[in-house]
């Protein structure tokens, strides 16, 4: 008797006792749906994190001098020349169309007197020309700090809408106007506005925009070229020591190549240094760690949930034993008609597997539905409770395909394991005893 016939026969006998077949499946359904729900949630969180990290611009490597792994613990204070702006600029110059350097350094707080004579405070940041690359959508008027501004150390700046409201009577006049910033250290800087940006909800929250009683209480941000800041400070790139630098890459390059370039550049500089090395920090590695932890948790909970599969399997075994007892006469007849022990065994094992596999499939569907439902609830909570973060979080619902495959495999295995013993008993029945069974 071939395999297909056995499957057909199994379906026929399961269809005869629909309610019983369903109740038997229930244990498997619960087990599998629990596993799939958990893995769907786990996988969705992981996907959401990775989407969110991408959104926040993980396409940067941070480099900073760090103590070598093989150092014995004793070391002198850092040498002045460990990482200078010159080195970074040199590195970028070697791979001009591949690597980028973006930075954002606080210069100082300063005071501005508006056209109306109101005084308000700002925070000034020296930024590189590509700093706004990832925030382009925030620039509403004019342009960001450009490469030319950087190289020629121009006195230009980018201000926020709030700044224009604070300073100008007619905020539309902003572009092209020159503003005097009175530094906390007493120095004066005059910068020409080349662009206007608007804050994200998250930034508004940081600045306390919604809580401010008056618009002049908001300590708004002003961005101007990094090199201009150095000029004001009177420092040369060679003298500018950086604690760390963020290296990005263009579409002509990728992360691994960028890492390679960095290593290659710093290798001769640090070759003979026994204490320090240039460390490359990849934000994605943090994400990788979170992801690993998440995977471990998901697997652990799944395994616990899978224990319910054993309970379900015992239920299947129980019902198979009952079913075989009920059908003893049938087994006797089949044997009298020429069924081999193996034919009978196969028939019952396949019945058990079909119960479990059908239960598994239903469980997978329920599990995915649960996962989707919970993710919807999560996104609803997120948008109502933390709206300022909502736009950064890319909520993804992604059932884990390996988990589904493994679950279905497991439910088949459950059927095989728990169906085998009853089926073997049925197969080994003595035909004459089976026929006489009342």
């Amino acid at each position, binding site marked *: *008797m*071939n395999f297909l*016939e056995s499957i057909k026969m199994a379906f*026929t*006998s399961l269809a*005869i006792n629909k309610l019983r077949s369903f109740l038997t499946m229930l244990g498997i359904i619960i087990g599998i749906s629990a596993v799939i729900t958990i893995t769907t949630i786990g996988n969705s969180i992981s996907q959401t994190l990775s989407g969110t990290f991408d959104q926040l611009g993980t396409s940067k490597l941070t480099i900073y001098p760090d103590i070598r792994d093989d150092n014995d613990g004793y070391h002198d204070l850092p040498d002045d020349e460990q990482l200078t702006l010159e080195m970074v600029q040199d590195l970028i110059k070697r791979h001009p169309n591949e690597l980028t350097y973006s930075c954002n350094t606080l210069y100082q707080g300063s005071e501005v007197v508006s056209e109306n004579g109101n005084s308000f405070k700002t925070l000034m940041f020296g930024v590189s020309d590509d700093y706004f690359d990832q925030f382009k959508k925030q620039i509403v008027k004019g342009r960001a700090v450009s490469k030319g501004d950087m190289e020629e150390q121009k006195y230009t700046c980018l201000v926020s809408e709030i700044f224009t409201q604070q300073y100008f009577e007619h905020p539309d006049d902003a572009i092209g106007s020159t503003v005097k910033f009175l530094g906390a250290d007493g120095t004066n800087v005059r910068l020409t506005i080349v662009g206007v940006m608007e804050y994200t909800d998250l930034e508004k929250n940081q600045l306390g925009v919604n809580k401010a009683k008056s618009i002049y209480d908001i300590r708004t941000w002003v961005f101007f070229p990094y090199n201009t800041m150095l000029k004001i400070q009177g420092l040369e790139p060679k003298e500018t020591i950086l604690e760390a630098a963020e290296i990005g890459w263009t579409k002509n390059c990728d992360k691994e190549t960028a890492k390679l370039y960095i290593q290659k550049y710093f290798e001769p500089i640090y070759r003979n240094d026994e204490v320090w090395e240039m460390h490359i920090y990849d934000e994605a590695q943090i994400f990788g760690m979170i992801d690993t932890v998440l995977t471990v948790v998901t697997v652990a909970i799944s395994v616990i949930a899978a224990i319910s599969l054993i309970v379900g399997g015992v239920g299947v075994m129980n019902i198979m034993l009952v079913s075989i007892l009920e059908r003893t*006469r*049938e087994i*006797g*007849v*089949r*044997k*009298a*008609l*020429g*069924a*081999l*022990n*193996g*034919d009978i065994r196969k028939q019952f094992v396949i019945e058990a597997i079909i119960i479990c596999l059908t239960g598994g499939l239903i469980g997978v569907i329920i599990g995915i539905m649960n996962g989707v439902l919970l993710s919807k609830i999560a996104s609803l909570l997120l948008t109502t409770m933390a709206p300022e973060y909502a736009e950064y979080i890319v909520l993804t619902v992604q059932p884990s395909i390996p988990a589904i495959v493994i679950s279905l495999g497991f439910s088949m295995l459950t059927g095989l394991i728990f169906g085998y013993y009853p089926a073997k008993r049925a197969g080994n029945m003595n*035909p*004459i005893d089976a*026929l006489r069974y009342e």
Partner: protein
Amino acid sequence: MNRVPVIHMEAVTKKYYIGEPNELQILFDIGLDIYEGEFVSIVGASGSGKSTLMNIIGLLDRQTDGKYLLNGTDTSQLDDTELSHIRNKEIGFVFQNFNLIPKLTALKNVEMPLLYAGMSQRKRTERAMELIRLVGMEDRYSHDPSELSGGHKQRIAIARAMANQPSIILADEPTGALDTKTGRMVMDLFHKLHKEEGKTIVLITHSPELASETERMLTISDGRIVSDFERGKGE
């Protein structure tokens, strides 16, 4: 006579609970030859051992001692798988209580031995319908056993017994659960199969009247064959 008998038994015995205090011997020294095309009845009171004999003939049970050759093959050396194959191909069973499989249609029941013989679905259906026509049940082939009367069930059971063209049909009290009229119809069917298809039929019954319809009658009593009467030949 040089013909090889379909069934050849020599000194067959059957004991239960061997070696235990309640050891029970059911069959004693059975010697028996049944030839192709014979319609033989085995008659005996209940408890005489006729069912045990039938189970041994049908290879559902094994003798304790003695020799049983089916179509010249010594059956005592065969394993379960080989016995299953022989039951499937060489023996057609007709039981007192029909033993049709519930919830399967008459057609599927008749197909059962063909299924275990490894025949394809199309050929199975074809052959089973042919058999159902032979027993005159063609208008009810799609019914479940629960929807059939006793006489009809037994006719389906006979069709099933014929499925693989067995060397021998073993009928154990085939009319036992039927009323006189339907029992008559079933007996007529056996006669028809015997005459028209040339089937070898062994009928086990406690009824001497039914037995007297057959051409040869073996009487069994207390586990021994006490008479072997062949019509037209005498004892």
